[in-house]
């Protein structure tokens, strides 16, 4: 089945939102599920990572971060010049699209597992590494020229942020414990992963539906950006993956990472560091359009493209 059942939960949530159902996922359940998902992704990545010599990763990781850093630098001028958005907004949106969405990554992994594609375990490391550079770049884009930006504060905000702490913490615990040591924990963190993701997607559907108003105000330019930008980013991801000699699964997941737009870490960081930016625009685009686009169309498309190119180049 090319259709992942977890995606149906997203659609259910979105539909419930659109018909103004009184269904609400309590905020605390949302927070609890996101703690679970971040830890679980970290742990799983850590267990996989234990299989690879770390030294080999350094070059690949560096390449992935540098290639990923292109994204905000492509997005910013498009938003500022073509979209005529104020500097702060263009920079903030660029940061959202340069950073990554953990849930899109999770859905991508799930999709690939359903397609029997194996994925290099260290992709989770890339997930961790890709989260923050774009945030820094976005803040720099917004603030350059101004005196006295407090980078220390910003760095702390990002690195001590919930998602980095849990992903990295999980990664290290998984790496120390290894696939045997983690054993009774896998019943919670691995076996239930997809079910928890399904409930989380139900909530994301509800939230995405409630963001459509913001989006309508944002207009056609931003809506188009929210579809074209992930395709460009995915292309960068596919090229990078092929150059690094990743598998089909690994390349597709890297493309998915690049294509995804952050709607957890980035909004939190931008709200504090670039307060003039309108969060309605960036969250509306990232969550209202790009997230469903990646889920429903993007991921299968990136997979198809990777397979096709793999046949040609690899």
């Amino acid at each position, binding site marked *: 089945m090319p259709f992942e059942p977890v995606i149906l939960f997203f659609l259910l949530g979105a539909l419930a939102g659109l018909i103004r159902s009184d269904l609400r996922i309590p905020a605390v359940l949302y927070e609890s599920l996101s703690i679970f998902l971040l830890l679980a992704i970290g742990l799983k990545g850590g267990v996989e990572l234990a299989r690879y010599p770390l030294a080999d990763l350094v070059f690949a990781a560096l390449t992935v971060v540098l290639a990923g850093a292109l994204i905000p630098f492509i997005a910013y001028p498009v938003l500022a010049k073509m979209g005529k958005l104020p500097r702060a907004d263009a920079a903030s949106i660029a940061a959202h699209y340069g950073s990554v969405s953990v849930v899109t990554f999770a859905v991508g992994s799930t999709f690939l597992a359903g397609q029997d594609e194996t994925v290099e375990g260290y992709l989770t490391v890339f997930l961790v590494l890709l989260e923050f550079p774009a945030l820094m770049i976005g803040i720099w884009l917004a603030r350059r020229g101004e005196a006295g930006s407090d980078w220390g504060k910003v760095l702390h905000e990002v690195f001590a942020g919930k998602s980095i702490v849990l992903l990295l913490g999980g990664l290290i615990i998984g790496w120390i414990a290894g696939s045997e040591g983690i054993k009774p924990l896998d019943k919670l963190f691995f076996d239930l992963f997809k079910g928890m993701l399904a409930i989380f997607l139900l909530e994301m559907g509800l939230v995405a539906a409630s963001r459509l108003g913001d989006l309508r105000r944002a207009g056609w330019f931003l809506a188009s950006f929210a579809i074209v930008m992930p395709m460009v980013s995915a292309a960068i991801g596919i090229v990078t993956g092929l150059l690094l000699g990743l598998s089909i699964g690994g390349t597709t997941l890297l493309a998915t990472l690049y294509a995804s737009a952050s709607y957890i870490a980035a*909004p939190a960081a931008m709200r504090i560091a670039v307060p003039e930016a309108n969060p309605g625009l960036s969250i509306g685009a990232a969550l209202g359009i790009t997230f469903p686009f990646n889920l429903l169309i993007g991921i299968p498309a990136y997979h198809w493209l990777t397979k096709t190119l793999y046949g040609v180049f690899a």
Partner: protein
Amino acid sequence: MNRPLQARKLLTIVCEAALEKRLEKELPQLGAHGYTISDARGSGAHGRRDAAWPSSANIRIEVLCEQSVAEAVAHHLEAHYFSSYQMVIFLSDVQVLRAEKF
């Protein structure tokens, strides 16, 4: 016992939850001796905030203090947050016991 009631100001701030950590640091610097926070949702000039997820959650902060502190806090917030953040503040007159605390 049966100490007299004395007049103080109650400053109430309703704003985005994203500001909690920052305001917790700034309020004491502005002379507040304490504060009370609870979770809230709401609606205002910037639309509805339903607290369905962290980005759309509000908080409600109360500060009991002297008139001068209340004004200092109000003007600090006005200068630093009113233009970019969703925030509403209001002051009222209250009576407290142990006025030296506030």
